[in-house]
């Protein structure tokens, strides 16, 4: 996770050089989070870049009450959810499907194994992957995820449980074949 956070006394007026260094340091964290959330490398790169630009624009609003990485992850999550809302049309979801298999192809071509579990993750609704990653990889609380996604904590909790059950069922089906 994050290696550094801006000094509290200087938040809101971070010098450009320090901000540049912070963003550079956190670029990988945001990209890896979005890669897991989107399961699409190109989209993850695009939204990471957009997140960095938004962070520069909105740095005055960062009050230091959370980690800098959490603040960036919140921006990235909201941008991704906005993107999904804009792309609800059917032909876009078909386009998404074809891009998703590109990740499998690319992962395997880089010499890594593509597991059944990763396939199950791909099959999930895009909005469902986000809380799962935030909860079980980054260890955020349901309240924190709720704030990031503008959802009540109870909804986040039931969504995470539902997703885990769904993957488990998928796994049982795969093992049966």
């Amino acid at each position: 996770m994050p290696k550094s956070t801006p000094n509290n006394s200087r938040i809101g007026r971070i010098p450009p050089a320090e901000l540049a260094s912070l963003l550079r340091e956190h670029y990988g964290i945001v990209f890896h989070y979005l890669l897991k959330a989107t399961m699409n490398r190109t989209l993850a790169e695009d939204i990471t870049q957009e997140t960095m630009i938004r962070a520069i624009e909105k740095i005055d609003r960062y009050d230091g009450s959370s980690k800098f990485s959490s603040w960036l992850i919140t921006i990235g999550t909201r941008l991704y959810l906005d993107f999904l809302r804009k792309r609800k049309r059917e032909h876009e979801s078909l386009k998404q499907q074809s891009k998703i298999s590109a990740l499998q192809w690319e992962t395997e071509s880089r010499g890594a194994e593509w597991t059944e579990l990763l396939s199950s993750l791909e099959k999930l609704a895009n909005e469902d992957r986000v809380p799962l990653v935030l909860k079980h990889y980054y260890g955020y609380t349901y309240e924190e995820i709720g704030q990031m996604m503008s959802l009540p904590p109870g909804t986040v909790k039931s969504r995470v449980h539902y997703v885990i059950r769904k993957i488990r069922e998928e796994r049982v089906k795969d093992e049966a074949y």
Partner: protein
Amino acid sequence: MKPTDQDQDNKLITDLRQDWEVLEKTYSVTPAPLDVWESLVHRQRQVTRRRLWRDLLLFWSVAVPLVSGVLFLGSGISAWFWLLQGISVIVGIPLAINEFKASWRKGASTYD
């Protein structure tokens, strides 16, 4: 003994974490050199500042005709009032259309 629901969930979460870690390692990231980031911050701050000035200009270009129109009406100079309203419409409508077009173009191309 048959594993409980909780055991199965925990096993799944452990496996998920392992797969996510593999994914992270497979797609390792090398961020651009620091000077590239510095120039991005510099450029972006300039863009933000310019946008703020433009918004301020737009605000005053609406506020001035409105306030002075009310003042003209209040002091009984209706000819000046109508002249100002006319100019505002002629200048304001193309400006507003331009703004809408620009924001629509930006929205459409953000992730394309």
